[in-house]
């Protein structure tokens, strides 16, 4: 069984985001980037399924400029068998990413695409679902448990009301939520080994992918700031303030 895992390079989740003063975007130059945390979870799950003998081959794929190669190296250090770099400069929005992923999915005839439920830069939460739609296959989003057997997957999903279970036929797309697993610490020898692996490079043209109509960002602003709060010293003071505001 073959798994495709998509991995995105994003500003590290610990970075304090700065909006550019001219409102043209967020400062990303010279800022620490890492693999999107949800994609790490997808990668970890694929490796665990491989260790269990369920999956035999893991293909890591990323879409973006040269620097994204780092992210593929991280995926290889996790245990990806191969890596494909869809080389495209500039911003790539979810529908375009989905078209590329669907093309790779078909070309490699994989059984399952595992990807993070959202990327922590655009917070869009779209790519997995869009890829599944383009491929006309099943999707299980926000997975916190995945079992694969007999050409099917049983997936527990985190929904608003609790935990929902779906039974889906493969091939399929599964997007991963935070509680699915805890990604392992990468070992130095694995990181070193990953540096020597040959990465396959392809372009949209090679895959026959057309860029989708794009959403235009006309302005980026910091969120409205909250007015300065007060510190109280005692519970009595807190109660008095809450009463005064009519909150208790």
């Amino acid at each position, binding site marked *: 069984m073959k798994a495709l895992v998509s991995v995105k390079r994003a500003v590290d989740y610990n970075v304090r985001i700065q909006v550019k003063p001219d409102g043209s975007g967020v400062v990303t130059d010279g800022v620490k980037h890492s693999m999107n945390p949800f994609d790490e979870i997808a990668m970890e799950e694929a490796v665990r399924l491989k260790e269990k003998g369920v999956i035999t081959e893991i293909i890591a794929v990323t879409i973006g400029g040269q620097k994204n190669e780092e992210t593929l190296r991280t995926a290889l250090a996790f245990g990806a068998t191969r890596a494909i770099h869809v080389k495209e400069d500039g911003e790539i929005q979810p529908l375009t990413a989905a078209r590329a992923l669907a093309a790779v999915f078909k070309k490699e005839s994989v059984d399952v695409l595992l990807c993070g439920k959202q990327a922590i830069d655009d917070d869009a939460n779209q790519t997995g679902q869009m890829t599944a739609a383009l491929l006309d296959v099943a999707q299980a989003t926000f997975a916190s448990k995945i079992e694969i057997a007999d050409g099917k997957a049983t997936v527990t999903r985190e929904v608003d009301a609790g935990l929902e279970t779906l039974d889906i036929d493969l091939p399929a797309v599964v997007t991963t939520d935070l509680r699915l697993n805890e990604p392992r610490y990468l070992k130095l020898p694995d990181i070193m080994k990953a540096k020597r692996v040959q990465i396959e490079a392809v372009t949209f043209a090679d895959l026959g992918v057309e860029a989708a109509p794009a959403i235009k960002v006309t302005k980026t602003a*910091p969120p409205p700031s909250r007015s300065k709060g007060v510190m109280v010293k005692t519970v009595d003071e807190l*109660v008095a303030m809450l009463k005064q505001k009519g909150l208790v």
Partner: protein
Amino acid sequence: MSKILIVADHADGKLNGGVAKVMSAAQAIGGDVDIVVFSDNGKAVAEQAAKINGVAKALTVDNAANANLMGAVLAPQVVELVKGGYTHVLFCGNALGKDTAPRVAALLGVPQVSDIMAVHGANSFDRPIYAGNAITTVEVPEGTVIATVRLASFDAVAEDGSAAIEAASVSAALPSHTRYKGLQAQKSDRPDLQGASKVVSGGRALGSSDNFKVIFDFADKIGAGVGASRAAVDSGYVPNDMQVGQTGKIIAPELYVACGISGAIQHLAGIKDAKTIVAINKDADAPIFEVADIGLVGDLFTILPELQSKV
């Protein structure tokens, strides 16, 4: 003129309260607004939808396949309806909306806007990125606009209308690759986290699921819903549907009391629209105090019982 379709979320015969908030966003866009209820028997839910002010028609699409709502099954049906001339399709920015909207957009070959938080026009919206640390204004290209609406950003419209209810006929081939197996729901008599006007949340500091009792007790005293940080959820103190934040629930209560929560940006993303934030934390330098309206430094295990006895 815009013709807007809202896809209703509902469960157990009850319309999700978020739909009346999505209506606010629809009215800001302007135009005719229909609400569609996909169900195996949607009459009761459609009756509730018909009361939402501003609805032109409440549509029902009854099909056994819609007994439990799933994005993969809904999407082809929504696409069929869109062919009737809708310019916009709006979803609640919750699990169902996130599951379905992108699937609809991809089938139509148009991009999707996630988490609309303000409307500037029929094709221009604000939405958050980087856990709400930046807000972008976006322009959607020509074509059908598919979007989810950030429920915390809009007030519900009143529900004293009486629109017509109509059965819509939708002939779409439905997939059989996805089967619903069940829901493990947490039963609780407390107010629903997303609708509650007051929420008390606990973090890693609680240390165990037993200790969470201090949070529940205080919440019950003031009639609040209960939330949690991811750390508390990950540690297994409480179920995941209580997680508040970037990747949990985004809420906008009148009062939010954060107890033993440090205030990581991912948590704050879920409470930016709370009217009054109270923070109780023993670390005076905890980042939660930077956003709190009222802060109290101290041990929550002594503060909460005292607070409970004094309110």
